[in-house]
């Protein structure tokens, strides 16, 4: 019997029974593995950390893409940083009104391998509106000003290749790269285990310094540490819930398995302990 195990904390482990390993490679930046499993379908891991499984990736990708798109349906120019698996791009491509999607992924191999082994996730990467740039996100964003309506930071963890995407200089540069009504959504770690909670607080503090509106919403992702995951919603103008035209989104008739408008509104209501963690770093 083969098991994939990820250490969620020094004292907690999470394991998935694996049928077989489909792929393994050490790229210039990280180790990339793909497993086949009975329970979760295919599983992508980077440096031994689980990035997605076919069974629950829809939750993450729907919630990172549709929340800002519902708030700002006129978004035409979108930037995705990280997200080489293509899941976020797949959700964005459901909007006919989006004209351009720039994907900035540091590791070209993640894109190649996702296309080969995770076709259900990577399926939209060939959409003509999608342009892939293989470079450091921090570097890319530094050279951009007043360009995007929406930036989605679909990053790995605040250590390893994605480190630079959790820094104050990165968030500041995102602010600068957005139009004056632009929105940035980011993968915001988890509030539950202490180490993740610290990372979450640090990210929140830095985003608050750069954006006038900075809120957090929650999702349930069964294969991520504790299952309780957060996204950051940072915005130059629009509030994530107030004055949102829900009907306009419904009229788009976009099919989702997780996302819906009441859930969107509800996901910004956070448990007290999370509110407290956030409040601690807001000034």
């Amino acid at each position: 019997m083969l098991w994939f195990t990820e250490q969620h904390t020094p004292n907690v482990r999470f394991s998935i029974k694996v049928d077989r390993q489909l792929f393994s490679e050490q790229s210039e930046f990280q180790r990339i593995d793909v497993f086949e499993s009975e329970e979760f379908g295919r599983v992508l891991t980077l440096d031994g950390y689980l990035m997605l499984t076919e069974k629950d990736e829809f939750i993450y990708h729907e919630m990172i893409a549709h929340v800002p798109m519902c708030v700002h349906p006129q978004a035409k120019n979108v930037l995705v940083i990280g997200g080489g698996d293509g899941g976020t791009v797949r959700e964005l491509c459901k909007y006919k009104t989006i004209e351009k999607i720039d994907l900035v992924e540091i590791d070209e191999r993640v894109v190649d391998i996702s296309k080969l082994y995770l076709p259900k996730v990577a399926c939209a990467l060939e959409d003509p509106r999608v342009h892939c740039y293989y470079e450091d996100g921090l570097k890319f964003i530094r050279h951009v000003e007043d360009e995007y309506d929406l930036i989605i930071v679909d990053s790995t963890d605040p250590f390893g290749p994605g480190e630079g995407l959790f820094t104050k200089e990165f968030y500041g540069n995102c602010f600068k790269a957005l139009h004056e009504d632009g929105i940035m959504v980011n993968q915001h770690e988890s509030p539950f285990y202490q180490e993740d909670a610290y990372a979450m607080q640090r990210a929140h503090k830095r985003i608050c310094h750069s954006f006038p509106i900075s809120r957090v919403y929650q999702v349930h992702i069964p294969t991520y540490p504790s299952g309780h995951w957060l996204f950051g919603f940072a915005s130059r103008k629009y509030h994530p819930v107030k004055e949102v035209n829900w009907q306009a989104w419904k009229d788009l008739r976009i099919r989702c398995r997780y996302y819906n408008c009441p859930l969107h509104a509800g996901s910004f209501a956070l448990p007290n302990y999370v509110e407290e963690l956030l409040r601690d770093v807001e000034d």
Partner: protein
Amino acid sequence: MKYISQENAPILEALERMKIARLVPFDVPGHKRGRGNPELTKFLGEQCLSVDVNSMKMLDNLCHPVSVIKEAEELAAEAFGAAHAFFMVGGTTSAVQAMVMSACKQGDKIIMPRNVHRSAINALILCGAVPIYVNPQMDPTLGISLGMSVSDVERAIKENPDAKAVLVNNPTYYGICSDIKSIAKLAHEHGMLLLADEAHGSHLYFSDKLPVAAMHAGADMAAISMHKSGGSLTQSSILLIGDRVSQGYVHQIINLTQTTSASYLLMVSLDISRRNMALRGKALVDKIIAQVQYARDEINTIGDYYAYSSELINGDSIFDFDITKLAIYTRSIGLAGVEVYDLLRDEYDIQTEFGDIANLLAYVSVGDREKDIERLVSALAEIRRNYRQTGREMMKAEYISPQVVCGPQEAFYGEKESLPLYDTSGRVCSEFVMCYPPGIPILAPGERITEEILRYIRYARKKGCQMTGPEDMELKQLNVLTHI
């Protein structure tokens, strides 16, 4: 004798043999391979504590090297092109001091630029030699002191034919080099030794794309900070000497102040770093050059900032430039270097080497990753976007020619009184005042205090520079000589 080459690391090999021997330690250190201090062992790791040992037959002794330390020093001498190398465990400070004290005795003169590190002037307090300062030229825009012009050195030599040595920074913290080859030749023609403070130059020995290294330029002694650009542990350093000085005498001088319990952690780090640089130094330096050039180009496209390089070279006071140094002029965004330094640390979690009143210095070395360079560049871009100031009165650093009234030793040990700092104008200082880093004295013992100097101190403090040196650590009071 067995054949050893740069592939060897004799101290490392001896420590490995010692571990295998499983000696029962009834000698110091008392932590006994860490067992006696579990908290320390947990923090530093068992590996580390197990080689924190004292000298013994199989490990040689730094005070009198006859086996593995001797071999390691010989390999270092070969790698750096010196007649002999001494491993130093008291920082490059101890190397600079050994160098000066080997060259000079009580009352001897030594020619040096005024922008030397405090360790050089400290050596003068200890041995009683007196400095003959050569005015390092100053770049009027950047406000940094440069190298010594050869004609200024020549004049100092002619005026002081009895001087024993000339000391040169190779390069300065900012990467500026004097024409050390010509200065060495001049010194030798007049029977003087050429000493080099290469605290910022240990990597020069391993690349042909960089300014000439001191020993290759004919220096008689060079103090090199392996712990800065060479990758060894903090506090480890090497003193190189040539044929003109007596190895035995320098060794005696070193032993005047050196510990009799030299740390094997420091020594093995020198041994391993020497091997690394000897075998792979060229490629490592190439990587640093490329990274720094990338950072400079990116920083210069941000706007306003000026990350300078070899375009500064003027054939004299900037005879050459060490392109691995990343110094950035920040006054053009209306911020002092030290203000940018503080912002980087407090707002962006980036610790740079230091900021002076107009420049920021980021230290780039063998350990840097491309993504960290991206962070530095991006943070500088953000600081410009968010904190830039216009129309702010910014002081220009100008070279303040020191008025040396008496030698540093006489001033330091002389009859003195303590006065409120800003009441000391016109008096003679008996202690140091400096910003640290870079640790270049604003006032050294024996120099006259002027209004101009006090103004500079007030400004640098206001900008957030940390002042060190005086007996009164808060620098409210300053010691001045009573009799002059």
